[in-house]
């Protein structure tokens, strides 16, 4: 099981566990506020924008090309922005901390 912590816009910190699928799916399944994942995870809607905690950014890596284009003009984009539908859950992400973008 991989533990992932989400910090919502209300500054609530929620830790959930998952073993497969995308981080967006995990968030939606647990009703994490601010992550909608409306397109179902095909990088088409940008409703799952998160900021990766700096220490973990090496593990998640940079956004892909399509993802970068989706994010470039987002409000509140940061150098650690990712679309969580593009983050596949695996052991290496254990302990990951994500701040849900406003």
């Amino acid at each position, binding site marked *: 099981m991989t533990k992932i912590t989400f910090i919502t816009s209300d500054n609530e910190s929620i830790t959930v566990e998952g073993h497969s699928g995308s981080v967006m799916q995990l968030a939606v399944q647990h009703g994490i506020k601010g992550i909608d994942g409306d397109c179902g995870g095909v990088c088409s809607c940008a409703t799952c924008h998160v900021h990766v905690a700096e220490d973990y950014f090496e593990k998640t890596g940079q956004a892909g090309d*399509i993802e970068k284009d989706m994010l470039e003009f987002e409000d509140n984009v940061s150098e650690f922005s990712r679309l969580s539908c593009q983050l596949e859950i695996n052991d290496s992400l254990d302990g990951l901390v994500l701040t849900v973008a406003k």
Partner: protein
Amino acid sequence: MSESQTINQVCIIIGASHAGVNCAFALRKEGWEGQILVYDADPQLPYHRPPLSKGYLVSNEGFERNLLMPPEAYDRQRIILKLGTRVKSINRTIKSITLEDHSIQKYDKLILATGARPFIPAIPGIDQANNLFPMRTAQDALDIRNTFERIKTKRVLVIGGGYIGLETAASLRKLGAEVTLLERENRLLARVTAPEMSEYFRQLHTEKGVQIFTNKNVTAIQSKGEYNKVICDDQSIFKADMIVIGVGIRVNKALAEEAGLTVENGIKVDASARTSDQDIFAIGDCTYHFNPHYNCFLRLESVQNAVDQAKVAAAAISGKNPVYNTIPWFWSDQYDVKLQMVGLSNGYNQTIIRKEEGEGNRFSVWYFKDHTLLAVDAINNPKAYVLGTKFIKNQQKIDKSKLVDSSVAFKPQNLLVLQG
């Protein structure tokens, strides 16, 4: 509404697809404490519909990945799914619904998320056709896949050149089918896009080996043993081992009509997704609703509309005063091409096509009515989609001469007409 007020109440949702399920969860987020019962005739656990014609048809990942929510999420939120259960009628005077087995369930709030069903045209012979399927439900997708694997010769005929038809054609082509697609109009996607987009998709599918024929009006289907002969009004004949039909939908509005609710091109709702009955709401594909940005009533077949109206209805039921005001957006994936669309192009009088330099066929079609940007279709071009969304939302004026010039970098400050 305080919790104590809703704790003994029942909210019934009819329809467990994107709209209904999202509404159930949104109600809990809004603090609805009472019972939530979700009915659907479809026996499957609620699933994402868009992938059915796309990834789901060609992947072996299984159905689980396609679920809207895992089963335990419903338990956690005390959302009771009544799947495989058809609702027969609504009795507004005693606020109840009647099920197929004549049992009655009372409600305090009722949400209609009845969606739509595939339109099957009355073509002579269509009822006897072999291996003919629409593409709307998980069962349809499964039937298409299983049949495709079973049939020896794999001639697939797709009737209808809209998104469902084209996506299904692309997926079946990927699986190795010999695909022919017939469209009644003189171009693909005639109802929803500019001719340039139609031509792009015609070329794309042709390059991928799909045979596309336009101006083909099917007038009869003859089943011949295992295969079908599909006959058009110009006397042309196509042989097909399997037929997929994607010629549009019909709104499921009978329940609402029989209950005496106001129904026009769909179930009519106000800005809070409320129908003509105070305690009944309608959301998703089945609604005829007002779009403030485009200043018109419309019906939309999209996930965005389903999900956003679900949130609006949940907020309204929880005593808030939400106003549904969004710019519609859509997407389609065919082969390795990503199409993203935002806005409504109805009434456009000019299109501007911007082709990006460099690798890949990346371009976008910008629909204008005079100086007002109405909609953008973006091919492999998320930047155009994102910027288009911003420009439409903010009603910004665009310098068309710069937009068309791909040497001008895609940045808001480069493309906007400075207001002065």
